[in-house]
């Protein structure tokens, strides 16, 4: 992979929630050693069950850290105009300027993210005036109007108050707003959750449209594998705060290597299916109390003794990466040594 293709890179990223409880601290390891390389002009999907740390990972990448969430280790590097920088090394002002112009965010639950006492066009104006100084109010409304029209959304929404719009519409407005200043990276956190299937399609279509227009990167988090199959170019599977598999979407669907990924793929129903769908047994572990060794081993049907002892390293097989002892190099030796 060419270096110049990479727009976002992380290096053993760790972010924990550190909670003060009577008698000490409770540490929730939401992001526990994540290495990513995300390219330009692609849609990168992040999949996994609820509570695996996906949203926290997004926040950490966006540098949206608030107590009790803290960056515990590793770094996040962005490449802009050819040069790379550490996003956590920026000053508050630089970070504020970076936001929306270079990286944008669509939070989970777009139901309540708009200021309820002002119209949508005013929200647009707030974003514009904070990042594009020197425009008059009318100019800003014009920009907002053009933008909405281009994306195929009805212009009337600008005059509406947030509570007058449906949930699906609000989601689309949030996505459109994220694309307003043509950022190089857009983070979308569960954009289709809580929406019915028809509306979901509209949302997915909008994301595709934006990516095609801007040729930028969209990082999409959802537990819905169907959405990933639909628009993600590459896919990363997250479990218990770690990336356990990554690769081209088609490759992952056809040839899932990690037992957990296999469960995820197999759980998707297909036309003509009458057999029973099997999902992974048991529950995902509590991020405050991770099991020793591989975090998946208590639920893994192919668990080996080594899985209980140490955390698997990442094996790279071309574009396909997986963190599992089953696929580790020299695994026969490993297997033999422990049986």
């Amino acid at each position, binding site marked *: 992979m060419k270096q110049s293709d990479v727009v976002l890179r992380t290096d053993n990223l760790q972010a924990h929630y550190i909670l003060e409880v009577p008698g000490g601290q409770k540490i929730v390891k939401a992001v526990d050693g994540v290495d990513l390389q995300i390219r330009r002009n692609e849609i990168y999907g992040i999949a996994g069950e609820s509570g695996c740390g996906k949203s926290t990972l997004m926040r950490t990448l966006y540098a949206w850290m608030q107590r009790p969430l803290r960056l515990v280790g590793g770094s996040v590097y962005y490449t802009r105009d050819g040069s790379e920088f550490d996003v956590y090394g920026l000053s508050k002002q630089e970070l504020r300027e970076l*936001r*929306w112009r270079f990286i944008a*965010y669509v*939070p989970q639950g777009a139901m309540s993210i*708009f200021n309820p*006492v002002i119209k949508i066009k005013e929200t647009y104006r*707030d974003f514009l005036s*904070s*990042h594009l100084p020197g425009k008059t109010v009318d100019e800003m409304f014009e920009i907002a109007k053009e933008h909405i029209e281009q994306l195929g959304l009805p212009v009337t929404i600008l005059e509406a*108050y947030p509570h007058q719009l449906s949930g699906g519409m609000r989601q689309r407005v949030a996505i459109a707003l994220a694309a307003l200043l043509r950022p190089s990276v857009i983070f979308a956190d569960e954009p289709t959750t809580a929406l019915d299937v028809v509306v979901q399609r509209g949302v997915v279509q909008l994301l595709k449209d934006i990516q095609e227009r801007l040729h930028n990167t969209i990082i999409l988090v959802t537990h819905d594998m169907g959405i990933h199959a639909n628009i993600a170019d590459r896919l990363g599977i997250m479990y218990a705060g770690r990336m356990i598999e990554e690769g081209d979407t088609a490759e992952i669907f056809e040839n899932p290597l990690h037992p957990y990924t296999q469960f995820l793929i197999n759980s998707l129903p297909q036309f003509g299916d009458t057999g029973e769908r099997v999902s992974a047994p048991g529950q995902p572990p509590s991020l405050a109390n991770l099991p020793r060794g591989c975090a998946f081993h208590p639920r893994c049907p192919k668990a080996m003794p080594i899985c209980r002892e140490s955390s698997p390293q990442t094996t790279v097989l071309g574009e396909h990466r997986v963190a599992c002892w089953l696929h580790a190099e020299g695994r026969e030796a490993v297997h033999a040594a422990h049986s």
Partner: protein
Amino acid sequence: MFLRKYLIPRLIQYFLVIFLGITIVFFIPRLAPTNPVERTIAEIRSRGTYLDPAHIQAMVDALTEMYGLSGSWLEQYKGFWVRLFHGDFGVSFFQFPTPVITLIKNALPWTVGLLFTTTMLSWLFGNIVGGMAGYANNRFWSKILDFFAMFIRPIPYYVVALGLLILFGYVYRVFPISGGATIGHRPAWTLAFVKDVLRHAFLPAFSMVLLGGASWFQTSKLVVQNVKAEDFVQYAQLGGIRERRIMFRYIIRNAMLPQITNLALSLGQILSGALITEIVFSYPGLGHLLYSAISTGDYNLIMGIITLSIVTITTLVLIVDLVYPLFDPRIRYK
């Protein structure tokens, strides 16, 4: 559209509350175990006045007439409302024969002036400072102010008033201890008179602003802290919107809404506080009048003050209620 759904029900509620309130005010004395007429006679007796038995019946009759207690209940009720519409509350007993309405009219401006200015001041001041404290709720000054408010807020009006009176009226003789203006001073729009009024008004006003301000400060701080954690504020922050804009357009604009409602709900309590403060300072408003009325058992005067207060408060609450939709589009457009 909005009118029908919001305005009409509110107006109905308004009239209903006034009607019920006044009806209650009408019935309580008539249902109470002691008859007001008997009370008055007892009161007179207890002051040692000798009453010729032959005259007592005449007194009873006169008093019954004066208190609007003659005739059947239905007749009384109708008569009550008729007189109400004419602004006739009967004649004061302890300042016979001055009509109650005159006494009230004289006292009213003092109370209104005190009430209005102190409520506005404490609401605005408390909300702004409390809002800023809520926004910067980790800063030292915010915590100190909160600490002070914790001491002041639970103390009832008259204790604060009494405390201030003792401290600044007796111990350190800075302010006058009673009255609205120096006795003998002619009311006129001269600077001297205005200054005199202000000097007299300072302590009562200060005690109310202190209490009211502490209360609004604390509620405002809490509200702002909650609003700060709302999704749309978080979104604005991660969108890189300028802090000042977030503070005013997102936080304060939204924090105002519950505070307006709270203002409406506290008006009754604030009025009570004002009356009590007036009593402590012998300030010539409705409070003081009420106190005199109670001490002398002046039935008509008490009824008049209570009725008027109910109408006033209910009306003020209605006004606040009608103003609210102007600030909250969720009510304006359903």
